[in-house]
């Protein structure tokens, strides 16, 4: 199991700025699950990302998907951890990449897409996106499902 963790200190990308969130007339608070969902969707959008989450979470997710009760779709927040402050957010992402892609390039693409989405949608400054690649997907060795995107 290979692991790549990179840090991205500070950002200079386009940002709505936190000024909109705290005003004299009251503040806007964004809850953790909101940021986690946005980060999860943003990471999955990137080509080369097959799945998200560590082994145990993915196994559990696959079991839950087959259960007749509850929501059958996998959670978009699987493999995402966030720490959200008043003006800043930090994100940890666990990825499974497709075999054959440049993992460094995919990780960088995930990082910039996550930052762009969170800063654009939440107005929070993203201080870091830590990406951990926990596995590589080798193709349809155990199931008939096609590759990610």
């Amino acid at each position, binding site marked *: 199991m290979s692991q790549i963790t990179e840090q991205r200190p500070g950002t200079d990308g386009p940002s*709505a700025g936190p000024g*909109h969130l705290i005003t004299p007339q*009251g503040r*806007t608070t964004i*809850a953790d*699950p*909101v940021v986690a969902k946005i980060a999860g969707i943003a990471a*999955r959008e990137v080509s080369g990302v097959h799945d998200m989450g560590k082994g145990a979470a993915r196994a559990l997710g696959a079991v839950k998907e087959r259960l007749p009760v509850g929501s059958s779709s996998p959670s*978009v927040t699987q493999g995402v951890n966030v720490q959200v402050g008043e003006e800043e957010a930090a994100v940890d992402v666990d990825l499974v990449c497709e075999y054959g892609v440049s993992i460094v390039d995919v990780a960088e693409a995930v990082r910039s897409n996550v930052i762009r989405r969170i800063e654009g*949608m939440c107005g929070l400054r993203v201080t870091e996106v830590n990406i951990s690649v926990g596995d590589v997907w080798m193709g349809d060795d155990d199931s008939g499902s096609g590759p990610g995107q």
Partner: protein
Amino acid sequence: MAEVDVDAVAAVVQALPLVSSLSGGQFGEVATYLPGRRVRGVRVRDGNVEVHVVAGPEAPLPVVGTTVRGAVLPLAGGRAVDVHVDDIEVPLSAGG
């Protein structure tokens, strides 16, 4: 400070296109407790009114905050309006 009509607050917030619904918070405890019923997602304190919402898909959240605050301020009787985005609706294309 003036009384706040929580039903009116809930109605104007619910009517905003950027807002999917009012949110009761993680445990459904955020509400105004009235005789016989409760108004979900609105809480009035001495100095502020708290509004908890679920944002619609693709809604820029600072805009959600400003819009909700702008709609509620006239009803808040001089209080500040704190907007909490508790959850966000996931666009259908993204699954779950």
